[in-house]
Each structure stands twice: as C-alpha cells, then as structure tokens.
C-alpha cells in the first residue's frame, strides 16, 4: 500500500522534445522531472550523480540516446520517444538490456502525408512564389506569372510504403497521379506498381516522395545517379530524414537544372542556417514541422502521459517498438 507521502515517479527528459514547455506544468504535476538539457554539469556527470534510479526517460527525436547514455542509466526500463523514427536510439543496447521503447506509431501519418502533398503541389503549381508575386505587387494581369505543371496523370514514386507512404499514395491518387513505389517488401494488398530497384523507380517516375526510415541502407540512397534518373522535370519531396538525400548532390543537380525542383522538410544538418537552397525559386523549404500541428501535438502528449502512467502502474503500453 503506497503512503500518501509517496513521491511522484521520476522521469529524465532529454532534448527536450519540441514544445515541451507547453506541457511542462502538467508534466511536472504528475512526475518529477530531471531536465537534462539545462544543467551546467556535463551530461555524463549529471546522469552519474542523479539518474542511477531512473526507470523511464522521455526523449525527442533528435537527441541521440547512445550506448553511453543508456549505460549511465542502470535502472532504465522504458524509453519514450516523441518521434516515429528510431535512428537516434541505440536499439542494440535496448535489446541487450531488455529496455522497452515506445514511439509515436502512426499518430502523425496524416499530418506528414498532408505536408508531403502540400510541398509537392507547392513546387509544381508555384503556390509560394505565386503568393510572393501578389504580395510584392508584381501582378499586372498580363499573364506575367510563369505557368506551373499539372499533377494529374503524372507518375509518383514513393520510397518506403509504410503508414506514411500509404497515406501519401492515397492523397496523390485522388489528384489523378499514378502511384509506383519501392519498399523493403512488396505490398500485395495495394494495386501500385512495385519496383525492386530505386533507380528504376526514379526512371519511371515524375516525382519521388521519400517516406522511408533512416538506416544504414537508406543513408544517401538518393544520390546523383538517382536524381539524374528522375530527370530535368522531376521533383523530389523529403519528409523522412535529411540524410536519406545526398544534399550536396541535390543542390548541384538543382543548380544545373538536372532536376526540376524540390520540397524539403528535413536536411542533413538542422536547423538549416545557410544553404544555396535559399537562393532557389524552384524549391520549398520547411523547418522539420511535418508532425507539428496542434491536433497531433495534443494526441502525442496524451499518448506520452498514458504510457508513463501505465508504466508506473505496470499496465500495458501503447506503440511498443518490436526489438526482436
């Protein structure tokens, strides 16, 4: 029987996750929070002195939960990440130690797919430049704004047909696009054309939408070769992870007109401070916000609270990542 003087369970927070400050008060009313990001003491020391008893941590999708961090947390049983991606967590160590990892699951799939579609249309139909044309008082009515390009009837190549890729496919199909894809495995329940080879996918597509996880196989999978295969009118949209694209090669191809345009929410280095991309008109850039809507934010934090509460009450968790 727990006494009424029982302390709140303690959670170490790393990152912190974006918008953590919005839920900080509520979080602190339910848990004791070890804020690892704003200490004067170096992290290894902080963990050694303060985190020996900590069983659960919350991390953003950007903070690297390395083997070193994990070994500084000898009591760790649960890692809750706010992202869907897992490339920032040493899963081998988690498996070895029997640590449970939970992620965002498919909470964000719709938002990410919405942005992917939005970035593609924006590049093709010049929505952002069009808005600039009007707001900068350049519109004279003489047909002076350049034409865009049609979506309907075009071939859309999706790299990675997981829950996000499927959501993107559904949306782009409604615009009359033909869907093709490359994925680890063929999906027999969809009518889309499967390409085993990503270069063949690029050759056969007018656009490439990158929806895959980042891992050793997908790092720089979109390189100069693939971009040239996509071609002069091709558009690349990236809402996965920056390193899926060889960014230098992309910039080079854009500069030389070897591909038609790009819509990018992610970059090899974030936040993006300086880039030749800033000078280009046929690209649309966004600051890694594909998941950041009010609605998804709320759903994410409801999930996090639910999982931490369940953990401390020994109840089943949601969105457990299979580590076997």
């Amino acid at each position, binding site marked *: 029987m727990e006494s009424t003087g029982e302390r709140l369970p303690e959670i170490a927070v790393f990152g912190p996750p974006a918008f953590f400050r919005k839920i900080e008060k509520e979080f602190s009313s339910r848990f004791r929070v070890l804020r690892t990001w704003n200490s004067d003491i170096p992290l290894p020391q902080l963990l050694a002195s303060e985190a020996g008893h900590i069983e659960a941590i919350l991390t953003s999708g950007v903070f690297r939960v390395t083997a070193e961090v994990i070994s500084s947390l000898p009591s760790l049983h649960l890692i809750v990440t706010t992202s869907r991606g897992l490339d920032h967590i040493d899963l081998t160590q988690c498996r070895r130690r029997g640590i449970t990892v939970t992620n965002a699951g498919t909470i964000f799939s719709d938002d990410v797919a919405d942005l992917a579609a939005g970035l593609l249309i*924006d590049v093709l139909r010049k929505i*952002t430049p069009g808005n600039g044309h009007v707001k900068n008082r350049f519109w004279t009515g003489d047909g002076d704004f350049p034409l865009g390009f049609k979506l309907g009837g075009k071939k859309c190549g999706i790299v990675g047909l997981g829950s996000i890729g499927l959501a993107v496919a559904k949306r782009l199909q409604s615009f009359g696009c033909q869907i093709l894809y490359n994925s680890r495995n063929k999906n027999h329940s969809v009518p889309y054309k499967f390409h085993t080879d990503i270069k063949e996918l690029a050759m056969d597509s007018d656009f490439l939408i990158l929806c895959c996880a980042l891992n050793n196989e997908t790092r720089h999978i979109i390189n100069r070769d693939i971009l040239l295969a996509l071609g002069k009118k091709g558009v690349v949209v990236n809402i996965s992870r920056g390193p899926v694209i060889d960014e230098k090669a992309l910039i080079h191809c854009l500069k030389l007109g070897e591909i038609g345009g790009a819509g990018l929410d992610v970059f090899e280095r974030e936040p993006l401070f300086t880039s030749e991309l800033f000078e280009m008109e046929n690209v649309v850039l*966004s600051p890694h916000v594909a998941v950041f809507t009010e609605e998804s934010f709320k759903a994410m934090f409801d999930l996090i609270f639910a999982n931490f509460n369940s953990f401390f009450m020994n109840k089943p968790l949601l969105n457990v990542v299979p580590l076997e």
Partner: protein
Amino acid sequence: MKNIGVLMMGPSYGYLEQELERRFKFFRYGSQPIPRDFIALHAESIHAIVSCVGMIIDARLIDPLPNLKIIACFSVGVDCIDMKKCAEKGIRVTNTPDVPNAEVADTAIALMIAVLRRIRVCDNFVRNREWLSNEFPLTTKLSGKRVGIIGLGRIGTAIAKRAEAFNCPISYISRSEKPNNSYKYYSTVTELASNCDILVVACDLNPETRHIVNREVIEALGARGVLINIGRGGHVHEPELVSALVEGRLGGAGLDVFEDEPHVPEELFGLENVVLLPHVGTNTVETGNDMADLVLKNLEAHFSGKSLLTPVL
C-alpha cells in the same frame, strides 16, 4: 482560313497566339478597353474573338463588329460576356469546360494545405534564418477537417474527391441535391458555413451567386474557419472578407480570384493566415495547351460549317 479574322484579347498565351497567327488572320489586343480607332480600322475583318478571363465583351465591342460570328472563350467561365447580346445577334459562344477541372480542384486543395500548414511562412522562416533561434509555431491539421463546397458541379465534385482522400467529411450546397454520394446537403450557404471548417467556392458566377459569401456567411464560418475561393472574385463580398480577416473574425483564406483583378486589397498582404495567388487556377503548361487546342477546334469547326464541340450558346 487566312481570310478569317480572329481577335485575341487578354493576357499573353504563347502557344495559342502562335497557332492563331498560323491559321487565321490574327489581331491582338491585350488589355481593355480596346481603342475606338483600332476597332474602326479592323472592324470589318473580325469574324471571331478569342477571349480570356476578365475580358468584358459587351455591346461596346460587339456592336461595332458587323461580321463577328463566334466568341471562343479560353476559359470555363463566360460571366464577362453579354450573352443576351450574343443571342440577339446570333453570335455563337464556346468555352473550355472540363479541361481545367482537375487543375482548379488541385489549386483549391493546394490553397487549403498552404493556409492551414502555413507553407509559405515556413519557407520564409527557413530562408530568413529564423530556424536557428526560434521554434516554428504549431499549425492546424488538414486531415479530418469538415469541407463545405458551394457548387457541386464538375469542379466541386473534383474538389470533394480530393478532400475525401484527406479524410475530410464533405458537405455542400448546390442548385439541387445530388443523389448517389455520401455528402451532406445544406439548403443555405449560411448553414453550410456553420457546419464546416473550410468553405470552398466552386460555383458559376451569375446574378444569384454574386456575393454569395457575405458578412453573414463569413460570421457563420467563424474565427477558426477558412475560406477558399477558386471561383470568381465576385462570389465574395471583398470588403467584408478583408475586415473579417484583419479583425480575426475569420480564421484564414486562400484566394486565387479577386473582385478587381489584378488589384488585391493590400491589408491582406501582411496576414500569415492568408495565401494569395494571381489567378492561376488553371495555369499549367499542359492544361493551357489543352484548352488552347479546344479553342482552335471550336473555331475551325465553326468556319468549316461543322458542329461546335463545346458551345455555351
């Protein structure tokens, strides 16, 4: 048909101009009003007009052209043409229905995503190097929002089909209720606006639909509602729209059309929840060429004594 005079009015469109020049006796006047001496000089030679969006064709132009037989519109809308006058004089009118439906529908969805997810603002944020020191604020999810469509014709239906793929429940108002769909019908625009999150104007412009989006409708749509206009500027009471946006009584707007193009109320320029386009609804290379081909086919059909492909009158 080098003895057939065709006058093209409106903004430049290279492919169409080239083809008209190649096939007919070609006259070109880009803007309005066309000067009297131009008309006087060429009046007898003009047998056809190719007209673009925004070009007003009424008695002032029709009366002085004794040999005018057909007006082939390089657009779907024919609201700028005095149809009564044309009927009186037996002048045929054609348009380009359906060709640009998909593109107009795509533009409507593009505006929805751009407004809700603040794409342009995101792009500026990165290029202005604000990402280093600031977090971009949370935006609004599009998927699942209720979409209300004014006019469920071919364009309205194309918009509905796309919005459904974003899991948006669809409601609409139309001249008559359409069977065989799962969309909810409302009999007034105000009711429709009260029951949706995003209101899209997709109907024809005519005396009944002028200013169909007025103060009452805007208030019903409300401070979290978004208006998308890919119809005509005349569908919306523009001063009411501007004051509602400036005062925060309306949540946002995506506008491709305005009451007095290319003039756009400057109060809208600084608003992050407003996306403005220079009437590009159908403006793709592919669609423009398809529409131009249809204009050319209609002209050739008429002057060869064959049936028109897409007559309005």
